[in-house]
């Protein structure tokens, strides 16, 4: 295990100790014990920066299940490193912020921080694994920890609803992704991501290629809240605000973007990829920004804004993928979309993270996030106002902040999309810049709503539950750092240019091979370009819409609630549950006889049909030993006892007769020299007769219920069927030897390899120990099952 592996799982290890620390040191906020870890990890990952910029990828492998090609291999390249830095960097700030946000006295901090660490480790695993299966495992762990964090205030109904929704949608996508991974494996024969990327050219046109592409995109789209799967993200806002800032804006929701970026070189040669990623991204971009405007909850606005921004990055990645079709194109004509995507990814983390923290502060200090009750906070909370102003202006794409630069670059990418000239882009390409522009207008609009509806206008202290005041300094540190980054990157964008170049090298490696180097230079001034006019248009249209908002906002009410995706989800969930209950109730009648009926009927049909279709019945008497007299006597005794069970008048005699059947069978084992089996059977019979005697009291008298002939005939047919099938199979099994017997191996190796002389027992504990392990587990589960069934019935009986 290398240091790198340790770094990834260190949050998971620390998570084990958090409950202990929380219990022993109750005077100090648990968050302080946590904080050093993400900070140290951030510093550790910074040390990889030089290598990543130099184009080197660090690779460390740890064998996990080598026989299946599953290794915990870790690869740090530009893309992975950028995400690792985001996860640990934003993670440090969020932990710091949460120390002031979550009260030490009221909250279950131990749980909160365990979940948070779980997430941090899982997320690092997702972005640094070079093995698809490991990536998938960590991917599901992020869904799982997100579920726990959204449902952290689990006494609230909405929290539980949001947690379940996010879990159902993201895990659905995760499973689809697993399917995609397996399809990829079938084509490439490897789970290694870098090896798959290297093989990209060979698998295009394979019949499984398109299904794999769709499955993988389902995973990415659900995770990154792309239309129509975006509906879980607004409900995820029930989580505490530090969590929303961390998981649901800066890191986890970008896992889908990471996956798309990582697999761009594999799938980009397929036009469907460009259309799906670009098109769905664009649709999400528009729908998110359009829907954000109608919300009055600040976190609701931010949630839709995040959806829209994720769509923006996604659409850029889709359009940028086209660059791989033109390796001869100079100075990254289409690759600029990818540059914009990476740049915006960084910017979005800074401004959206700070905005979430600002909203958290507002919520914390005023007790509400509803913009109808807020207003005029500018004078009360001047620092928070400044932070919100810068964050929002950056999000709206105003100079001189970093959002302006990436927004301009986004327009460039979209304008060039119509020139791609592939896959019908010439006819539909115009859609890209048009939709992008409209969406940007709405983005501008909601950015303004966030700042001005909250901080300007009439101050309404009577509508607030508490008297608002400026936040404590500790809560302001994190957003101040993020906002400073917004300004610094805005003024000196080329500071991050080397990092962007190295990320692009991971997304578009074939271009690098063709002799390009990604020379990223970010300019503030491009001259009087179309992009500039688009920005000016956005601002003008945005201001107009803001001014006349009451006049046109009515269109939001025109959309019937009945057809919304949310009601579709709710209804669907309800119907699935109802349908499942219906089906279950139809066959789970509660009568053991019915269950035995299903099992035996299935047994007869499946085995009987197979026996018949495969023509498998053989009767070969050639190597059968002579039947000796005492064997015959035993057989007669067994049969007579078995038949007498049916004819027995009282239950007690039936039990004793059944015991007689068992004992005579164990005598057979003695005759055939299987002492272990004979012993086991004898003791089992003894114990089960005792068990029967115990249960005896609870059973009704035999023959009390008068059964009709049809019922009896059914039982007769089924029992004869089972008997006949078992006999036929036993005879055929004895008559046909398809393989050499394995007993010779045991005879030779029992003493040599396992130092035992009793072959049966050595097989049980050693050669086939795995079987035994699971058998005793099943035994234990059965015991617990019977225990809880009876105890539950007893307590229920007592309650009545």
């Amino acid at each position: 295990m290398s240091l790198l592996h340790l770094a990834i799982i260190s949050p998971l290890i620390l998570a084990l100790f958090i409950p202990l620390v929380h219990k022993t040191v109750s005077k100090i906020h648990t968050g302080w014990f946590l904080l050093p870890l993400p900070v140290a990890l951030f510093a550790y990952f910074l040390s990889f920066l030089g290598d990543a910029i130099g184009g080197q990828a660090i690779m460390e492998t740890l064998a996990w299940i080598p026989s299946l090609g599953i290794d915990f291999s870790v690869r740090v390249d530009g893309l992975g490193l950028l995400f690792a830095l985001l996860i640990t960097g934003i993670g440090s700030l969020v932990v710091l912020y949460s120390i002031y946000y979550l009260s030490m006295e009221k909250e279950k901090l131990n749980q909160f921080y365990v979940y948070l660490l779980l997430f941090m480790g899982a997320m690092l695993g997702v972005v640094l694994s070079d093995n698809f299966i490991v990536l998938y495992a960590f991917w599901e762990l992020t869904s799982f920890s997100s579920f726990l964090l959204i449902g952290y205030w689990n006494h609230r109904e909405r929290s539980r609803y949001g947690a379940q929704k996010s879990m159902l949608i993201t895990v659905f996508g995760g499973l689809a992704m697993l399917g995609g991974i397996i399809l990829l494996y079938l084509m490439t024969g490897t789970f290694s991501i870098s090896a798959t990327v290297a093989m990209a050219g060979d698998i295009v046109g394979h019949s499984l290629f398109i299904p794999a592409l769709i499955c993988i995109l389902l995973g990415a789209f659900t995770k990154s809240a792309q239309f129509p799967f975006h509906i879980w993200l607004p409900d995820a806002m029930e989580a505490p605000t530090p969590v929303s800032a961390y998981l649901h804006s800066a890191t986890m929701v970008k896992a889908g973007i990471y996956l798309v970026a990582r697999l761009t070189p594999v799938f980009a040669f397929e036009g469907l990829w460009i259309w799906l990623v670009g098109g769905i991204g664009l649709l999400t971009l528009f729908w998110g920004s359009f829907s954000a405007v109608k919300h009055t909850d600040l976190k609701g606005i931010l949630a839709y804004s995040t959806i829209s921004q994720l769509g923006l990055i996604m659409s850029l990645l889709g359009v940028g993928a086209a660059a791989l079709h033109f390796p001869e194109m100079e100075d990254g004509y289409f690759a600029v979309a990818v540059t914009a995507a990476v740049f915006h990814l960084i910017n979005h983390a800074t401004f959206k993270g700070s905005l979430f923290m600002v909203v958290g502060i507002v919520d914390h200090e005023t007790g509400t996030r509803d913009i109808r009750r807020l207003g005029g906070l500018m004078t009360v909370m001047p620092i928070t106002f400044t932070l919100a102003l810068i964050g929002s202006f950056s999000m709206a794409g105003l100079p001189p902040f970093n959002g302006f630069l990436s927004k301009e670059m986004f327009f460039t990418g979209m304008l060039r999309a119509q020139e791609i000239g592939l896959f019908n882009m010439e006819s539909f390409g115009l859609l890209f810049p048009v939709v992008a522009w409209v969406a940007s207008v709405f983005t501008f609009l909601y950015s303004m709503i966030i700042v001005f509806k909250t901080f300007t206008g009439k101050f309404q202290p009577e509508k607030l539950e508490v008297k608002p005041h400026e936040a404590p300094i500790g809560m302001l540190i994190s957003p101040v750092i993020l906002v400073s980054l917004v300004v610094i990157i805005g003024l000196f964008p080329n500071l991050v240019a080397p990092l962007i170049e190295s990320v692009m090298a991971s997304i578009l490696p074939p271009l690098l091979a063709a002799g390009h180097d990604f020379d990223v230079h970010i300019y503030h001034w491009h001259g009087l370009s179309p992009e500039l006019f688009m920005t000016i248009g956005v601002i003008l249209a945005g201001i107009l819409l803001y001014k006349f908002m009451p006049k046109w906002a009515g269109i939001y009410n025109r959309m019937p609630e009945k057809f919304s995706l949310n009601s579709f989800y709710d209804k669907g969930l309800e119907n699935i549950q109802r349908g499942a209950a219906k089906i279950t109730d139809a066959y789970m009648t509660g009568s053991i006889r019915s269950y035995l009926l299903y099992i035996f009927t299935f047994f007869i049909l499946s085995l009987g049909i197979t026996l018949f279709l495969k023509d498998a019945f053989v009767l070969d008497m050639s190597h059968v030993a002579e039947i000796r007299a005492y064997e015959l006597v035993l057989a007669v005794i067994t049969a007579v006892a078995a038949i007498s069970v049916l004819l027995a008048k009282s239950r007690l005699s039936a039990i004793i007769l059944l015991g007689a059947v068992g004992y005579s069978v164990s005598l057979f084992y003695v005759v055939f020299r299987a002492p272990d089996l004979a012993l086991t059977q004898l003791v089992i019979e003894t114990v089960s007769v005792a068990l029967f005697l115990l249960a005896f009291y609870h059973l009704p008298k035999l023959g009390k219920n008068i059964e009709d002939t049809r019922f009896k005939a059914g039982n007769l047919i089924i029992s004869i069927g089972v008997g006949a099938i078992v006999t036929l199979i036993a005879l055929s099994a004895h008559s046909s030897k398809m393989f050499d017997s394995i007993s010779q191996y045991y005879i030779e190796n029992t003493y040599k390899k396992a130092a035992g002389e009793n072959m049966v027992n050595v097989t049980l504990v050693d050669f086939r120990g795995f079987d035994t392990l699971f058998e005793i587990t099943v035994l234990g589960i059965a015991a617990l099952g019977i225990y809880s069934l009876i105890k539950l019935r007893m307590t229920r009986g007592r309650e009545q």
Partner: protein
Amino acid sequence: MMKTNNLILQTATKILLFVIVLFSIYMFFAGHYEPGGGFIGGLMTSGAIVLLLIAYDIKTVSKALPFDYKKVVGVGLLFATGTAAGGLLFGKPLLTHWFTYVDLPLLGKTSLHTAVLFDIGVYLVVIGTTMTIIQTIGESE
């Protein structure tokens, strides 16, 4: 359970119980070389306890043997999985067993085998399961 005064059965049980339990322990250890092992040993011990149950009643027996048999199942599973996972610590696959021979006073040359630890798990799970079932059903009146 039955409330009968079974003096002969009770007296015989007091002696037989130890014979059966001792025999079951012998069976358990003999398993590696002769018929026996965890399954049979466990069943036989349960048989002894069942005999107690028949001779006396459930309350008396649970007073004499105050085990929570559900926990016995848990301990047994812990033994089995622990032994199974033990090999992993030495870089061996799951369920790799290890054995050696030592000379013990009185017993002479004896083999020590980690499979016995695994078998203890089986033994305990079998007792635990059987007794949990019998006790729960017996108590549910």
